[in-house]
């Protein structure tokens, strides 16, 4: 299935395949491969929903995927047996531009004209038979994917599509058509045509190396006669759009329609000032939803995980296996699903905003602001997503056409305050920032807000810095179709939500889970027999001298102290002690150092480690933990957690790339280790220097 972006392709795909679809990957690249099954009249077809593209001359990474699959240049994807071109009936102009290029393929083809209901309301009448005739007799089916109208007829055509035989076609640009046929009759006109127009480039490398050594002279002569001094792509656009306009004159008539109230409201809302205000209101609602709505569910998951992990330890006894199941596996799974509520709410909003056409508008409204930091409006969506989690944020950079702009955005994204930073902020703020009011505002809230702002500023400065140095280049382009406002289709939204949640669980979940197990092992092994013996003795003594509630408290205290002692001599504790000299200029003792080390693969584990190391148990509530860390002291009695040290720790957490899942996704999206390694080293260095400055200047 090939079509322009926003042509209703995914809605039609969902209508044709229902839930019989899966999301895989093209090997080597991270763009998801949406594959679905359709059975009709006993014929089983595999449908692939390709990323939207405006032309066969690809512009962005996503468009490149679509074009490579169409031309069978995609490793791991087979050549299509047929093409279903999806064309928005309200946008025949751009739809036909793509379609006439597809027709030049040696491949059976059918057309679905989508959104016929919207076209009708807009007074657009398309003569289907005339259009089909103009396209050399290929089948054209008007459909309304939201209601299912026309779907059966389309399925009839699709089930016999691979056997379709096509009459010779009436090319849109005869000069190019003939030239391509003459140059190489062995390949499709579409493919050879691209080589002629685009010249030998990365995309058509294999065809170029096959053809050009022999036919270089003929190739050059053809290009000279077709384009002269003109830009080839411009010449192509002129020639093809001339055909499109002629065809539209023949097959489409547009009747004047009365402007509805809705249309008038949208027109008003699109004006600069209402548009910008509306954008900020919508963004505020999304933030509110992601944080306020998700919190109760996250708390529920958190307490369920603790209860389950506690029950597992109780049931399995005290050994390593019990700890592995309770503190390793159950806590590990919990640390993945705890993010699901926020991620799902975020995804839901992003899908709704995307399908309603709002995201494109947000990019357009914020382009000017983003341009001043060397990015374009298209970087705004990844940045917003990163406030929940940098992983989906970084995956959302695929629509950015230029690689340099895309990498700059990817490296700025992890600075946005993600949901995993929030518990650390909350703990330290609760412990060190007094809960008093400054005017109307709560000081603690202000500090939290300042940390968010700090992340944004550092991310933006990073992008700016990179665009001035390693990623220097021309200004990022910005030219965007702004789809008309549409009411999102519930079914499509839910199917997409499910798909994205699966991808997140797979992509981030596996990494977070493995990391949780490794951190568990580092904090558990080796076990000290001395501590175990001491614990048993202390428990026995307590049982003799105390009873009732006081006994329970004492036993818990002994258990927590034993856990702290065990952690102290575990690999993690030893690592903390080893690196303490490195971190003591920041005011951190070995306890904080080990918690920070444990947090490097996944920052959210820091609270659990701090809880254990300060002997309040790993499920300590915030109030108890913040009491305890306030009284933590150096051997000479100075307090560890001073205000400058806490500020430094906050800065460190705001800046550090403590997330293996993010590193993995940067690796996948940039297809090299260079950028994730750079991001990690750069952000760690920034965090260290920031914390050092805060502590040294503050003390």
């Amino acid at each position: 299935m090939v079509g322009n972006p926003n042509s209703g392709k995914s809605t039609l795909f969902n209508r044709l395949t229902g839930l019989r679809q899966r999301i895989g990957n093209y090997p080597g690249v991270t763009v998801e491969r949406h594959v679905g099954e359709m059975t009709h009249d006993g014929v089983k077809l595999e449908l692939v929903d390709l990323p939207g593209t405006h032309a066969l001359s690809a512009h962005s990474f996503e468009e490149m995927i679509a074009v490579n699959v169409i031309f069978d240049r995609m490793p791991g994807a087979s050549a299509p047996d047929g093409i279903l071109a999806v064309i928005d009936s309200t946008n025949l102009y751009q739809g036909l531009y793509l379609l006439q290029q597809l027709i030049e393929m040696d491949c059976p083809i059918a057309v679905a004209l989508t959104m016929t209901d919207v076209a009708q309301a807009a007074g657009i009448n398309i003569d289907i038979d005339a259009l089909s005739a103009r396209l050399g007799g290929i089948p054209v089916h008007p459909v309304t994917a939201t209601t299912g109208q026309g779907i059966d007829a389309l399925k009839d055509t699709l089930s016999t599509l691979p056997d379709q035989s096509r009459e010779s076609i009436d090319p849109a640009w005869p000069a190019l058509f003939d030239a391509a046929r003459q140059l190489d009759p062995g390949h499709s006109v579409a493919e050879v045509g691209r080589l002629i127009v685009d010249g030998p480039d990365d995309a058509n490398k294999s065809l170029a190396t096959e053809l050009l050594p022999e036919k270089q002279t003929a190739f050059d002569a053809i290009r000279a006669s077709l384009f002269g001094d003109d830009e080839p792509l411009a010449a192509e656009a002129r020639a093809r759009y001339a055909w499109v306009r002629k065809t539209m004159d023949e097959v489409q008539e547009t009747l004047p329609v009365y402007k509805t109230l809705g249309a008038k409201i949208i027109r008003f809302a699109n004006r600069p000032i209402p548009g910008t205000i509306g954008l900020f209101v919508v963004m505020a609602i999304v933030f509110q939803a992601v944080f306020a709505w998700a919190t109760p569910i996250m708390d529920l998951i958190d307490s369920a995980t603790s209860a389950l992990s506690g029950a597992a330890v109780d049931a399995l006894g005290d050994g390593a296996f019990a700890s592995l199941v309770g503190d390793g596996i159950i806590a590990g799974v919990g640390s993945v699903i705890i993010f699901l509520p926020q991620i799902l709410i975020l995804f839901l909003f992003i899908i709704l905003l995307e399908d309603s056409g709002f995201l494109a508008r947000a990019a357009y409204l914020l382009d000017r602001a983003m341009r001043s930091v060397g990015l374009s409006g298209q970087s705004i969506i990844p940045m917003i997503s990163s406030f929940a989690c940098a992983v989906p944020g970084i995956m959302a950079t695929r629509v950015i056409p230029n690689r340099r702009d895309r990498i700059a955005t990817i490296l700025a994204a992890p600075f946005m305050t993600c949901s995993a930073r929030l518990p650390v902020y909350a703990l330290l703020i609760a412990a060190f920032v007094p809960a008093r009011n400054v005017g109307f505002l709560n000081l603690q809230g202000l500090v939290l807000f300042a940390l968010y702002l700090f992340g944004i500023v550092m991310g933006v400065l990073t992008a700016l810095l990179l665009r001035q140095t390693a990623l220097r280049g021309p200004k990022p382009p910005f030219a965007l179709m702004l789809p008309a406002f549409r009411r999102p289709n519930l079914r499509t939204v839910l199917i997409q939500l499910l798909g994205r949640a699966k991808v997140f669980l797979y992509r981030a979940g596996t990494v977070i889970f493995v990391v949780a197990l490794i951190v568990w092992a580092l904090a558990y092994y080796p076990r000290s027999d001395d501590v175990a013996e001491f614990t048993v003795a202390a428990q026995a003594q307590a049982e003799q001298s105390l009873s009732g509630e006081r006994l329970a408290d004492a036993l818990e205290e002994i258990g927590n102290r034993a856990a702290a002692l065990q952690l102290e001599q575990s690999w993690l504790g030893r690592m903390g002690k080893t690196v303490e000299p490195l971190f003591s200029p920041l005011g951190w003792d070995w306890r904080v150092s080990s918690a920070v080390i444990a947090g490097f693969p996944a920052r959210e584990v820091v609270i659990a480690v701090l809880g254990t190391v300060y002997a309040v148990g790993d499920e300590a509530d915030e109030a108890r933990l913040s009491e305890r860390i306030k009284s933590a002291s150096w051997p000479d009695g100075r307090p560890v957690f001073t205000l400058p040290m806490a500020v430094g720790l906050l800065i460190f957490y705001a800046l550090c790339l403590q997330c293996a899942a993010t590193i993995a996704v940067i690796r996948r999206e940039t297809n090299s280790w260079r950028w994730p390694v750079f991001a990690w080293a750069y952000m760690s260095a920034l965090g260290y220097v920031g914390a050092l400055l805060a502590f040294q200047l503050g003390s």
Partner: protein
Amino acid sequence: MAESGKTLASMNAGDKVVIDAVDTRDPQVRRLMTLGLVEGAEIEHATSALGGDPIEFILFGQAISMRREQARAFSVSPVGAGE
């Protein structure tokens, strides 16, 4: 062809024009041409973002946005002027 020096960047909201000529040197302009901004296409200035940049146009019923910098590459004349 009208050589009034008017471009897509010098229009007011609601203006309807025809593209007369395109300066194709900028690759971003060529990208806009593949989206349908070619000589002879009718285009309407709809609105703009805060500060007047980027600009939103209507091309055959579809909204398309571009920066002022690229809009300058498209010379235009009012609808019906050249006929």
